[in-house]
């Protein structure tokens, strides 16, 4: 009980001293920008890294950035499994496009998971006018549009601003990259940077493809300044998937119609100048993408969902080792496609190696409007035996949408020359005495569990003791024996303390015993002698007299004096039997036992029964 109490106290104390500390201590977040001063026509790359012990870390919540338009540029993740613990870090990349000249502040970015939280330090960014734009836009005029969109003569049916969304292909396979381009056309000067609302995507995994592109184009005879945003889409399911409208809200510069003869001409002229801003909201047409399922025919067993074009390579950090040494194996899958949707790479069976749990890292990049990168699996191999051990070619199966078929890439096979290891501490199952750590002539090659024990019965001693523990009712027997011994001892003690009483109580038993002997006697004289002896001894025991010399007369006197309640016929029955037995004892030997002898025996037995009831002590 004391041990339990101490354990409980130790548990409670340790709990109170901070059992919950580790989770909170390991979640962290940091933010970095590639520059702290940026032109109005340029952009800032913000990288937010969240790291911690969980396999799925929380996404950072970006606060409202009033002076910037924010575009996600993707994320890269590193996950490590070491000794059963998962540590992970995710870097989220954002592209910030300034909206106005002045100081821009990125407030603290917070993350929280499982009760723990962390946040970054605020970052200040100075937004300066674009180079060479001083002449186009008055200095210090906030909200003035960059110089990119410029006024142009209006073409027939060509609006001032418009948004067009396009896909690079009308149909694609599940998990194949499709590039969505959203183009914002402006033929008139913009008052400040526009606000962009990306299209609603359902059934897609999206990755932004920075940077923004700016160029000029002519539509229906009208010149436009175009801003283009590209997004890589990976459809997650087959069917006709809808892409919603992209919306742009902006203020454009329009020429107000000022009547020089109006009474308030001067008031309006000085209040709004020659030009006036006008709010515009434009949206693109929704799009539909036809997504084809991956063909079931020819799908290999090891296919885990990778779509694109990949290659696989493997390498070990050493080509010579000893048994028990650690050899680092790196398997890299690189190529174009959605690496995040790629299943785990399964290593082939390596019976000559002990394989530790692998750690995986993903490095994703976007080049040429294509999502690409590499996924690296690192693990530790420990050779179990010596010799030239091979790491066979590691296969990786993917679907190539261009070729419309499944392709299996393979790494080159590897080989490691393994020498016998140094003798180490005993690791094999003990046999008798503990093995010496470095017994001469013994070389520990491998450590493993001992073999099966199928059919091995428990030792006899174990079975005996377990049977004793589970004996159940048999446990009562020793108690019964002790009770019997105690009762017997008590009875014998009582006999020793009252010998006359003992004689009195045992008289009938002894008399019946002699009667029994008389039945088996050889002749009637011997039988009569035994019966006579039984009668005399019975009466002597009951009357507490010595049997020797006891006569019928003495018996009658004693019965009348000590047993006044005994009826007279009983005494006469005793006398009759006594006499009959005497006559039989001294009768001639020719008279053998017959019917008369049996009647005397029965009469004597009945007499004993009656006397046992009538004689009182």
């Amino acid at each position: 009980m004391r041990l339990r109490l101490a354990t409980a106290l130790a548990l409670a104390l340790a709990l109170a001293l901070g059992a919950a500390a580790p989770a909170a201590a390991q979640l962290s977040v940091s933010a970095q920008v590639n520059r702290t001063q940026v032109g109005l026509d340029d952009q800032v790359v913000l990288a937010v890294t969240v790291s911690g012990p969980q396999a799925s870390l929380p996404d950072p919540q970006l606060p409202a950035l009033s002076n910037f338009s924010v575009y996600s540029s993707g994320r890269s993740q590193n996950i490590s499994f070491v000794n059963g613990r998962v540590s992970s870090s995710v870097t989220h990349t954002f592209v910030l496009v300034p909206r106005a000249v002045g100081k821009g502040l990125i407030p603290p970015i917070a993350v929280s998971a499982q009760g723990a939280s962390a946040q970054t330090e605020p970052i200040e960014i100075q937004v300066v006018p674009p180079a060479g734009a001083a002449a186009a836009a008055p200095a210090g005029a906030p909200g003035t549009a960059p110089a990119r969109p410029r006024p142009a003569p209006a073409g027939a049916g060509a609006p001032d601003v418009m948004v067009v969304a396009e896909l690079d292909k009308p149909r694609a396979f599940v998990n194949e990259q499709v590039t969505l381009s959203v183009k914002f056309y402006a033929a008139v000067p913009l008052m400040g940077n526009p606000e962009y609302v990306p299209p609603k995507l359902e059934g897609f995994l999206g990755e932004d493809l920075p940077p923004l592109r700016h160029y000029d184009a002519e539509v229906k005879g009208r010149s436009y300044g175009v801003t283009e945003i590209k997004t890589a889409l990976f459809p997650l399911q087959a069917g006709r998937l809808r892409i919603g409208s992209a919306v742009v809200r902006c203020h454009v510069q329009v020429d107000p119609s000022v009547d020089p003869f109006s009474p308030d001409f001067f008031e309006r002229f000085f209040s709004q100048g020659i030009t006036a801003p006008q709010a515009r909201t434009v949206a693109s047409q929704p799009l539909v993408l036809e997504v084809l399922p991956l063909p079931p025919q020819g799908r290999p067993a090891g296919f885990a969902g990778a779509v694109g074009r990949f290659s696989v390579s493997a390498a070990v950090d050493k080509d010579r080792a000893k048994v028990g040494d650690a050899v680092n194996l790196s398997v890299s899958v690189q190529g174009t496609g959605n690496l995040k949707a790629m299943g785990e790479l399964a290593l082939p069976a390596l019976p000559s190696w002990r394989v530790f749990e692998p750690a995986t890292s993903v490095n994703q990049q976007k080049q040429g409007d294509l999502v690409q990168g590499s996924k690296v699996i690192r693990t530790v191999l420990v050779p179990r035996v010596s010799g030239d051990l091979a790491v066979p070619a590691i296969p990786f199966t993917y679907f190539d949408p261009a070729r419309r078929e499944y392709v299996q890439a393979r790494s080159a096979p590897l080989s490691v020359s393994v020498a016998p290891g140094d003798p180490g501490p005993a690791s094999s199952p003990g046999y008798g005495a503990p093995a010496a750590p470095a017994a001469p002539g013994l070389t520990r090659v491998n450590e493993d569990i001992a073999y099966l024990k199928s059919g091995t019965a428990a030792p006899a001693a174990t079975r005996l003791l377990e049977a004793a523990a589970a004996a159940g009712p048999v446990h009562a027997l020793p108690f019964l024996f002790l009770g019997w011994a105690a009762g017997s001892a008590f009875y014998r003690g009582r006999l020793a303390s009252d010998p006359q009483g003992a004689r009195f109580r045992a008289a009938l038993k002894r008399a019946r015993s002699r009667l029994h002997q008389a039945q088996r006697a050889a002749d009637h004289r011997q039988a009569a002698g035994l019966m006579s002896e039984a009668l005399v001894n019975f009466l002597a025991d009951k009357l507490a007299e010595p049997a020797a010399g006891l006569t019928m007369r003495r018996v009658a006197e004693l019965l009348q004096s000590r047993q006044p309640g005994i009826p007279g016929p009983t005494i006469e029955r005793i006398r009759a039997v006594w006499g009959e037995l005497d006559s039989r004892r001294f009768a001639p030997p020719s008279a053998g036992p017959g019917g008369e002898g049996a009647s005397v025996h029965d009469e004597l037995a009945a007499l004993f029964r009656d006397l046992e009831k009538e004689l009182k002590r």
Partner: protein
Amino acid sequence: MTPALLAAALLAAPLWPSARADVPQGQKLYDQGDYPGAAAWYAQAAAADPRDAALRYDLGNALFKDGKTGRAIASYQRAFDMCPRDADMRHNLDYALRRAGEELVPAGAPPLLFLAFHLFSERELAGLQWLACWLALILAGLCLRRESLREALLPGTATALALWLGLGGWWLAVRGGISPPRRGVIVASSAELRSGPGESFSVSFTVPEGRRVQVLSANGAWLELGLVKEGVKGWLPASAVEEI
């Protein structure tokens, strides 16, 4: 004399081991590398004969080879509890425990003392206690009947028996044979122990698979677990723990 003969007959019966049929089937699957199949077979056999330590041990081997370290440790622990003197069972349990960051002999404990403490299983200790009790009762009965025996046996034998009954009772109580604590093994790959019985409670700490824990209480499908060595406790879904 009849009770003594009856008792002897009942006790002698288990000395002849019962024949176990079809054991080579599990062994065959194991030898062929079909560890899931072997584990299923041994699990069925062990359920049919829960007092067979060898079947528990074999089940542990199949589970371990199948990569289920937590369940293997639970099975090895049961086998070790039944046959603590078996070197193979001790080795395999220790080997599997080291995978989970534990050792069979706790750090700081002298190995010989640990082995002595675990010389007998709890059932063996209970059996020894009963045999000592029987011996004491029979001797007491004989002494009541024979005065000569009383002088010859007392007080030496009586003192030895009383000492053994006292020591054995204490040993059995400490080993948990009288009021056994609920024990378990983590069988999830990385278990997150929470501050309360539900997903809404925050994660307090993580425990690797194969770690032995004490089951303190239960609340629905959640168990409150304690780690004595670290002095911490937390809640985990019952499906992530195998009670021993």
